[in-house]
């Protein structure tokens, strides 16, 4: 049996070396068809690398925004600046509460916000957080922190991406992932998109809300953390296209559940927005919609809703 174990001990590292080299080869040379369990492009189109780099130097802000693409494309730090509010947008793709809590632990003390606003749309509670994790991983340097997070999520795609990122870093192959010319990064974390109008809101089928327990637990952790740190927390449902909004069957339940967690505003109910004019697609405001929503939010922050 000794010989058997010796062979295994010899084979395992050699095999891992071959495996990781193949990841590098396929990651650099393969097209998307051959990168099934490797994500090294696509998700980067949200300037996450710029956002995370800037986040390392942000201190003492008034409001910190967290959440999914609804947040990073829906909360314009410039509009808040005009009202004298220093804000930072730490939204990432598909960021569910399990990811939000990790980002909070990492940045909350240095940023020391007076207020935290988190986007709580129903879909995000149904996510496993993989998309957000990969978005962060491919846009930040490998560290013990990223490795621990990969182990925590425990998904093959994440491990492969981690290996690819490791090679990139080891051989200084890093080049900024190509960013599209339809959007630009605004210092403070906001992602501004070229103005477009939504024409997707037809034939939408109704959907049920099936949240993951882990996401609901993570939301409670966020609330607890904010209480401990004595930071005011506001849960916000950022507007989506009305025709899309109305396809959700469990909205009353969702609204009552969120309301029971703390201060919660569903802006889909407060604002009269048009499917096409104020939206870029079914789930994202365009710049016209962002302006209306942000002004309403600022007004409510200054003078709370009843």
């Amino acid at each position, binding site marked *: 049996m000794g010989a*058997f174990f010796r062979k295994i001990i010899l084979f395992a590292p050699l095999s891992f070396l*071959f495996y990781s080299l193949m990841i590098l080869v396929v990651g650099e040379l393969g097209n998307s068809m051959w*990168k099934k369990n*490797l994500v090294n492009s696509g998700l980067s189109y949200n300037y996450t690398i710029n956002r995370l780099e800037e986040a390392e130097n942000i201190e003492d802000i008034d409001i910190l925004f967290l959440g999914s693409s609804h947040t990073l494309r829906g909360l314009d730090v410039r509009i808040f600046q005009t009202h004298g509010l220093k804000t930072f947008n730490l939204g990432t793709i598909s960021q569910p509460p399990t990811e939000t809590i990790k980002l909070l632990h990492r940045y909350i003390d240095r940023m020391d916000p007076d207020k935290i606003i988190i986007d709580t749309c129903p879909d995000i509670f149904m996510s496993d957080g993989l998309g957000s994790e990969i978005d962060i991983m491919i846009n930040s340097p490998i560290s013990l922190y990223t490795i621990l997070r990969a182990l925590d999520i425990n998904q093959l795609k994440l491990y492969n991406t981690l290996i690819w990122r490791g090679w990139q870093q080891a051989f200084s192959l890093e080049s900024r992932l190509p960013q599209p010319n339809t959007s630009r990064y605004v210092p403070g974390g906001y992602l501004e998109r070229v103005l477009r109008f939504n024409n997707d809101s037809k034939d939408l089928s109704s959907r049920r809300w099936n949240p993951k327990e882990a996401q609901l637990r993570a939301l409670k952790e966020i609330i607890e953390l904010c209480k401990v740190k004595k930071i005011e927390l506001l849960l916000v449902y950022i507007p989506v296209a009305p025709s899309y909004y109305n396809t959700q069957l469990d909205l009353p339940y969702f609204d009552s559940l969120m309301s029971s967690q703390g201060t919660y505003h569903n802006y889909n109910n407060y604002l009269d927005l048009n499917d096409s004019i104020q939206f870029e697609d079914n789930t994202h405001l365009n710049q016209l919609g962002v302006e209306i929503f942000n002004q309403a939010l600022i007004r409510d922050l200054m003078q709370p809703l009843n």
Partner: protein
Amino acid sequence: MLFDSIEFAVFLPIAFLLYWLSVRISVKSQNLIVVLSSYVFYGWWNPKFLFLILFSSITDYLLGILLSKTDQQNRRRLLLYLSIAINIGILGFFKYYNFFLNSFIESFTFFGATLEAEYLDIVLPVGISFYTFQTLSYTVDIYRRKMQATTDILAFLSFVSFFPQLVAGPIEKAKDLLPQFLVSRRFDYVEAVDGCRQALWGLFKKAVIADNCAHLVNMVFTEPSSHSGSTLLFGMVFFSFQIYCDFSGYSDIAIGISRLFGIRLTQNFNFPYFSRSLTEFWRRWHLSISRWFTDYIYRPLGGSRTSKPKILRNVFAVFLLSGLWHGANWTFIVWSLLCVILIIPSMFTGSNRRYLDTVAQGKHLPSLKECWLMISTFSINIFLGIFFRAPSIAVAFDYIASLLTPDIFSIPNFGGHLGAVRTLTLISFMMTVEWFGREGKHALDNLTTSISRPVRWIFYSFIIFLIGMYMSTDSIDFYYFQF
């Protein structure tokens, strides 16, 4: 616990180490580790299932002892019938209660009467069809005086619950497997290394080929009429590879892991897609259940050494039971009928004994005739697969009607071509490896004699890479778990 899960990756080394450490103590301690680890493995799905397997095991253990202690034929027959009634009763209740109830009610509805009955919300225990047949073989073989009953309860529990083959076979006959648990196992380096190789190849077939095919197959079988004929045609091909790689992949993993534990299981698949006729195909597909039906149903009925009407009856009985064993659905019954219709001519003409060897034995490539025979046999099988996979007869006919349309010549559409093209490429790789390994007991069996160690290790690492890069990340149960 699934073979391709993280839990199993942790469980297996622990069970392996405990098992081989216990060899220094006694055979009983080795069997105790087998039973405990098997019960942990099985209970991982649902601990309640453990009561059922324990009940089934103890019943047959006691009936086996009683059978061996009496020479009175009537009493022996009674004990055998009791064993059959209990085992088939449990299987029938869990697997067929709702099916027969529904069929009964529908037959009354057909004649204008209305019946009301209560359906039960029954959860089918994983692997029940497999271990029930295995324990049945024990009492039947004792009744036939082909083996002695064991009084070693731990060995018997190990035989019924041995975790590598517990939930999806191969179905082992008691006289082949039980004696292995009565003696001390010794670690065999060559067996263990080849076991790892076989399990690796099985994992590749399951995680990469079967699971990726499953996504494409589910897409077309959900609503066949919304797909083009060409997409449905490819859907049939993908299903053939899904079911083969799922089941043979599981068998390879089971046999490979068993070899790590010093236990030899019977070969369950012998490269069936390289068959030149349907009868050759059935000699190479799911061998363990074919052997079971041959020994306990076909031969007792007279086999093929009887009159032609009786041969027809015997073949029909075997395929009907085989169809029903797969599931409580009329689709399996139609599937078995079609198999009988296609096989019977060769039984009557004697051509069923053709092609007993391996195709293109000792050669790299087959002849044109062999290619044609293999392709035509495969084509028949993919057609039969429609009835095997469709959730109902209506969907199966809908599938066939939608298939036979002019757009069968169009480009297939699986919601983007990437997944389908990638899967076809991986299938080609798998079939190439299997072709060159077809004369061995598994696809990588002959690798040690044909290539040097560095190349071999690179090849194994390449398979590991293919698993890591292309396995389906959605957890998909083994297809045969439902049976």
